[in-house]
């Protein structure tokens, strides 16, 4: 199918007019990755029988996974490549689809009487239509491209995304057993899940900003449908909040496109924009960064991602790890070279820094596991945004590592919380007491996921290390924000870990067998998380460094000694559990000390007058200091000021006051 578009005017390796056979097959790989998920999605929509649907879904997911790995295999050492497609037909199809989406959004907003999205979509469509009719006809030769960043993003989408899809078949079956009130619309559910992957592939491969915008819109609408899946009042409200905030971003995006397409020397090609004079394109870049902020849930727009947790857990995993929010940071990392050294870039990085600080703080006061995960995602995204805003080669390198490691660890966390939730009937951290003994498999995988999020020598910590090294040279305030934020992350992760490893003897083993497929996905993710940490120098060497080198002509590194020490530490951490073989039998066991009262191993003690009492232990949540409402209010105030200043500086730059 893609071949039809692909054959004429192929341009490879940046050499115009060079017709190259391998180029044709490569562009077909890209087109396959974009279109195949949509095809699979349609199939899943129309197949009514659960068993067949599952079989088709598994095969499709494995094909997507295989195709993205194959893409890596074929482009392991290649530099950036551009692919031209004759795009008239595609452009028209996209425009029609955008029209349909606008109508759908308008219909839904009227149906549920939510008028903000309606206003936004009308404004947005007006700008788009006006632009389509007024712009000078510029033929973009290279609509698609592939470089190291898109390759890494494609791997994240293809591998993690399809694993989540596989997981979701078993999970959704359970979900409807647990949620009898929710109407079973699994056909639609899987349709949107797979379409989401296709949209994400399109987003990271597009060199045409108009195409990028199209796929951007698709991710917005997909997340809207997925968040509102259960159609409860809460789900509908949260879905509309997500829609409103994301449409606000899209409006900024289309304004940026309008600017880019109508300015002095108009262009909509990403590669050309990146080469343009900073002074000219700073305003549209800031608009696009604003769109990225809404999508990656930065303050003051964080509320939609927290609300999105009403959706079934695979949706959260998808939104948080491999799609949606990663689209936001992807676009910012893309434009980071233009933000480098500019005042709007400084403001953006401060928004990211404050988001990291505030979201980490709020996570302390939450006992709902999914909410903790949501705030931790927002925090990490803040760190990535800060890197993008700083825009030096070191910062971008750190951002790329953060994207990779966060995707893996966070996906593992969400999916294991989802599985545990179905078994213990709660997503409250306090109810996960002793999970490591009650559900050893899931408990241990959860611990690995958490260690992966905040402890040395796991990936996230290495990336954070890289980030703060980048910050201290450029902006010490950012360093300070991250220093305080990091301290908070230690607190909320460690106390959660503590709950899980508490050895309890009363609660018994959780009943019910684990779904085999869910378990398989979790095990694969665990292996990937550990594997990625072990191969961290390779990931840096083959992906992050070449990308930074391509863009900046300079590469960042952690230094050979440090890498060696990191790996030695990692080996030590991996070997440590084996010492359990020795310690397992050691020591005489006695009940815990309870003020010298006679007590039992399951925390019962004899109180006065022979009454036996039970003791329960609950974590600190420090509500007075880290309460959600209070911190959120502070965060929103600070970030609104920063965002306003970001636009102000961009405007002054545009007006020529700040040269």
């Amino acid at each position, binding site marked *: 199918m893609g071949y039809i578009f692909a054959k004429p005017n192929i341009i490879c390796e940046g050499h115009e007019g060079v017709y190259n056979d391998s180029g044709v097959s490569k562009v077909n790989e890209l087109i396959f990755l974009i279109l195949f998920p949509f095809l699979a999605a349609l199939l899943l929509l129309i197949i009514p029988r659960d068993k067949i649907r599952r079989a088709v879904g598994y095969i499709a997911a494995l094909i997507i996974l295989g195709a993205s790995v194959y893409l890596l295999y074929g482009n392991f050492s290649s530099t950036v490549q551009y692919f031209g497609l004759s795009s008239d037909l595609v452009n028209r199809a996209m425009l029609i689809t955008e029209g349909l989406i606008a109508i759908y959004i308008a219909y839904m907003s009227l149906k549920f009487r939510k008028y903000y999205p309606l206003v936004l979509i009308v404004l947005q469509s007006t700008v788009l239509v006006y632009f389509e009719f007024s712009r000078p006809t510029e033929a973009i030769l290279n609509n698609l491209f592939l470089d190291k960043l898109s390759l890494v993003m494609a791997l994240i989408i293809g591998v993690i995304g399809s694993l989540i899809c596989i997981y979701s078949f078993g999970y959704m079956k359970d979900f409807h057993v647990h949620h009898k009130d929710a109407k079973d619309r699994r056909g639609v559910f899987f349709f949107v899940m797979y379409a989401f992957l296709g949209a994400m592939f399109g987003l990271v491969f597009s060199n045409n900003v108009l195409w990028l915008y199209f796929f951007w819109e698709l991710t917005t609408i997909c997340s809207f449908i997925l968040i509102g899946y259960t159609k409860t009042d809460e789900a509908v409200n949260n879905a509309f909040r997500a829609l409103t905030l994301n449409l606000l971003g899209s409006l900024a995006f289309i304004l940026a496109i309008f600017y880019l397409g109508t300015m002095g020397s108009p262009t909509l090609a990403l590669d050309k924009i990146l080469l343009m004079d900073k002074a000219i394109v700073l305003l549209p870049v800031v608009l696009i960064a604003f769109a990225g902020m809404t999508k990656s849930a930065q303050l003051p727009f964080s509320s939609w991602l927290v609300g999105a947790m009403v959706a079934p857990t695979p949706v959260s995993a998808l939104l948080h790890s491999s799609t949606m929010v990663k689209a936001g940071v992807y676009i910012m990392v893309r434009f980071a070279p233009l933000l480098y050294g500019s005042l709007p870039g400084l403001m953006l990085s401060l928004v990211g820094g404050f988001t990291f600080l505030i979201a980490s703080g709020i996570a302390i006061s939450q006992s709902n596991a999914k909410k903790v995960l949501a705030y931790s995602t927002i925090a990490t995204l803040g760190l990535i945004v800060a890197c993008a805003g700083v825009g030096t080669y070191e910062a971008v390198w750190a951002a790329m590592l953060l994207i990779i490691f966060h995707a893996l660890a966070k996906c593992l966390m969400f999916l294991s919380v989802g599985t545990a939730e179905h078994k213990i009937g709660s997503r409250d951290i306090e109810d996960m007491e002793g999970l490591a003994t009650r559900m050893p498999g899931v408990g241990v995988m959860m611990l690995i996921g958490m260690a992966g999020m905040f402890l*040395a020598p796991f990936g996230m910590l290495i990336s954070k*290390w890289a980030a703060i090294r980048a910050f201290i040279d450029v902006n010490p305030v950012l360093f300070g924000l991250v220093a305080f934020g990091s301290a908070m992350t230690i607190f909320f992760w460690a106390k959660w870990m503590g709950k899980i490893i508490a050895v309890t003897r009363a609660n018994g083993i959780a009943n019910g067998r684990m779904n085999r497929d869910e378990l398989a996905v979790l095990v694969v993710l665990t292996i990937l998380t550990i594997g990625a940490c072990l191969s961290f120098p390779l990931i840096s060497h083959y992906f992050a460094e070449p990308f930074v080198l391509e863009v900046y002509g300079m590469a960042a590194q952690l230094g050979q000694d440090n890498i060696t020490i990191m790996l030695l530490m990692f080996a030590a951490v991996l070997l440590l559990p084996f*010492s359990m073989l020795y*310690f397992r*039998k050691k*020591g005489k*066991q006695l009940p815990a000390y309870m003020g010298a009262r006679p007590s039992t191993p399951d925390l019962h003690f004899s109180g006065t007058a022979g009454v036996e009492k039970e003791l329960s232990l609950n974590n600190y949540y420090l509500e007075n200091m880290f309460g959600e409402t209070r911190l959120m209010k502070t965060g929103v105030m600070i970030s609104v000021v920063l965002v306003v200043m970001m636009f102000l500086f961009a405007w002054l730059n545009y007006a020529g006051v700040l040269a």
Partner: protein
Amino acid sequence: MNLLYGLAYLIGAPLIGGIVIGIDRKITARMQSRVGPPILQPFYDVLKLFEKENIVVARPQNFFVFAYVAFMALTGLMFFSGGDLLLAIFAMTLAEVFLVLGAYSANSPYSFIGAERELIQMMAFEPMILLYAAGMYLATGSFLVSSIAATSMPLILLLPGIFAGLLYVTTIKLRKSPFDLSATQHTHQELVQGVMTEFSGPTLGGIEIARWYETVLMLGFVYLFFGFSPLLAIAAIVLTYMFQIFMDNTYPRFKWSLVLKSSWLVAATLGMINILVLWLYFKGGL
């Protein structure tokens, strides 16, 4: 990097740390008008602990404490070998988390609250120590301990705010009053032995050895301010430790919120202002 110094630390730190704590106990006793134990008492204590029966509430406890001791020693090894300062700080955090997890795994009321408080203390400590690393980097242009120690600049003059801040939070690491929330050496307290409550025998002995390692490491942190003059450095270390003993015996324990807020305030003011001034001076071209 020089691994010899690191190995010297691995062997020598427990000796020095034990003696420092022995002297500490003697001075503390004198301040309280007691005679006090012999200076070698910490060693006698630990030797005796290792002869005791290993009693646990949950068996994984031993494992976590083992990891704690191992990583605390490793942290010091990294620091004294002249490695990356940030990396050493991260390793220290990892070690601490293992201790906390050990206390959690026992699922006992006293050790549980001790663990929570230990985490609060870590949260209070972390920003300042990271700012310390940032300050060292801004002043010397390197995160490597070997380069920082070798500089001829009087770092203390460039980093007075950082020094004061570090002095403030060192109290947390030395488990001294008023910041000894999670476990204390003083006998009278409401939490029994807090985070240590359920550890006994050889396990407790291991924790004590880790404490010796940690004490020497903290003094190493102080040393870096005075790397230009080793003699002055030793004097500063002695004074620092005396100051800590003095504080320990004059202040009652703070509430957790005061510990957290005051530590953060110190880091955000003294630490950050120092960093900003340095940054403006070295990077901002003032």
